[in-house]
């Protein structure tokens, strides 16, 4: 625990740089800016184009809630952990610092888990700030309900996606970012929306299912049969267990991989 904490504190100190702070602000500002644009242009425009059928408060609120879910727990968190979690192994190998940690007792476990925790905190904090600033300027009716739901989902999303990207970054460290983006697009965003058994294995599906559990959905706004296609009606506990299990599997694969594989630069320097 001492070692894990040491790595986490050390990494927190290291990421306190102007460059990292800039990207943290970009991740935080992303949902705020889009929400601001939607509030300023999209909604009044839509109201003007269909004056005979004015949007109900609930419908607009639901639209903002889903938009913020996509911007916050989905895209912001994915972007955040893509920047912080995916390159963990590649960065250490490229700057040749890997061997110093690998020759410490459980050094690679502490390295991966310490950096993983930093990635989660870095991403979740930016996403939560973004959501907290975006909700007041949105036209969500149940603001507190949305705030709790979306911040909770941002935390869960950060843990799960950071684990997923850490695993991909460990398996394919040379092109970690490319594989992470490709996997996200193909599996999380495409298959995750597929109304089939396969989408149940995705993080997106579980997060979406929790969203529908944690916010009030008017049956007139989104019919129950539509929700059944894109989310699960299983209990909240089961959704959380699914997310925890996926996270645990991803982390386990990453940790086993660094123990089993030979990550050394000897081959390059020797030959």
């Amino acid at each position, binding site marked *: 625990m*001492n*070692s894990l904490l*040491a*790595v986490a504190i*050390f990494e927190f*100190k*290291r990421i306190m*740089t102007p460059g990292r702070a800039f990207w943290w602000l970009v991740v935080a500002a992303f949902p705020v800016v889009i929400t601001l644009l939607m509030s300023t242009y999209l909604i009044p425009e839509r109201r003007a184009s269909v004056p005979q059928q004015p949007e109900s408060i609930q419908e607009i609120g639901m639209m903002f809630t889903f938009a913020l879910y996509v911007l916050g727990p989905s895209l912001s968190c994915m972007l955040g952990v893509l920047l912080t979690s995916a390159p963990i192994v590649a960065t250490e190998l490229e*700057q*040749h*610092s*890997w*061997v*110093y*940690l*690998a*020759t*410490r*007792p*459980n*050094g690679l476990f*502490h390295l991966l888990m310490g950096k993983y925790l930093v990635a989660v905190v870095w991403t979740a904090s930016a996403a939560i700030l973004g959501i907290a600033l975006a909700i007041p300027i949105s036209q969500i009716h149940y603001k507190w309900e949305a705030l709790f739901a979306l911040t909770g989902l941002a935390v869960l999303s950060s843990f799960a996606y950071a684990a997923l990207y850490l695993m991909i970054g460990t398996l394919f460290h040379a092109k970690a970012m490319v594989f992470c983006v490709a996997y996200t697009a193909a599996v999380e965003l495409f298959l995750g929306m597929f109304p089939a058994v396969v989408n149940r294995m995705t993080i997106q599906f579980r997060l979406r299912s929790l969203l529908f559990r944690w916010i009030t959905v008017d049956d007139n706004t989104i019919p129950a049969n539509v929700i059944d296609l894109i989310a699960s009606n299983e209990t909240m506990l089961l959704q959380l267990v699914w997310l925890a299990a996926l996270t645990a599997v991803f982390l386990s694969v990453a940790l086993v991989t660094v*123990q089993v594989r*030979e*990550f*050394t*630069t*000897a*081959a390059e*320097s*020797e*030959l």
Partner: protein
Amino acid sequence: MTSEFLIELNQVTKLYGTVIGVNDFTMQLKPGAYGLLGPNGAGKSTLLNLLIGQLVPTRGDVRVLGQNPRNNMQLMKKIGFCPGFEGLYSTTTGLDWVTLLLQLQGVRSGPARVRAIECLNLVGMGDSMHRPIATYSRGMRQRTKLAQAIAHKPQLLILDEPFSGLDPVGRAELTDVMKQWISEGNSLIIASHVLHEIEALTDSFLLICGGRLLASGTAAEVNELLFDTPTEIEIDCAQPNQLAGLLMQHELACSVVVEPRTHGNDRVRLKTQRAGTLCSQLPDLASQNGLKITRMKSADDSLQALFNSLLRIHRGES
């Protein structure tokens, strides 16, 4: 598990795809200080990586202090490793970095910092340890690397090219630190491609080339081995043609070339398989025939030439 041997390698081969890194390496070393000598690309780093468990042998068995080094937590506490490349975090300070690596050895934060300061002082980094590593010179980075390797008081210190980038003063200081280390009864394996760097620390050498162990022993033993190995020699002589004739006549050279020089005596460049005999007979030959020899040296006295000779012996070509 305990063993009387520091290191045991039993028919160890390491392949990178189809390329051989270490080839059928067998040796047993008792605790002590050893110099691992070999030209660049000889397999030194591969061997060291096998010893610290970062590489798994394709074939054979590696034991360090009687244990398999791969993912061995107990053994990692007993080994200090200083790699050949830098790999330091540029934005952090030397003190923070050494402290972190000590904490990863299980030392608590406070004592780790105290010990890190102690070790950085020991390697002459006391004044610079609070500065970011990015501001360090190459030599300062080498010292910082050494500090992290000895900080947890390992039994065995493995150093890969530790003098690289150091100025003569820095080399002397670091040599003193390592001599002190050895005198305290600790073991050391130091890899280098520069012979005199190792000679200052130990007279036990392991000579490797092409992934093979070519020779081992003291400097005297290695010299003895090389006494009659094929070698090229240059002799500056006032009567070069006469000398060339005598060398061929006495079968002391396999080939002789006389090279005219604008300044000084002409040079006789010869190849011989009896260097030892040549050296012992040449003074008599010169005095009996009135030859004036002004200079004599091995034409290929680089370390690579030494290894080429050893490689030929190893292949049975001598």
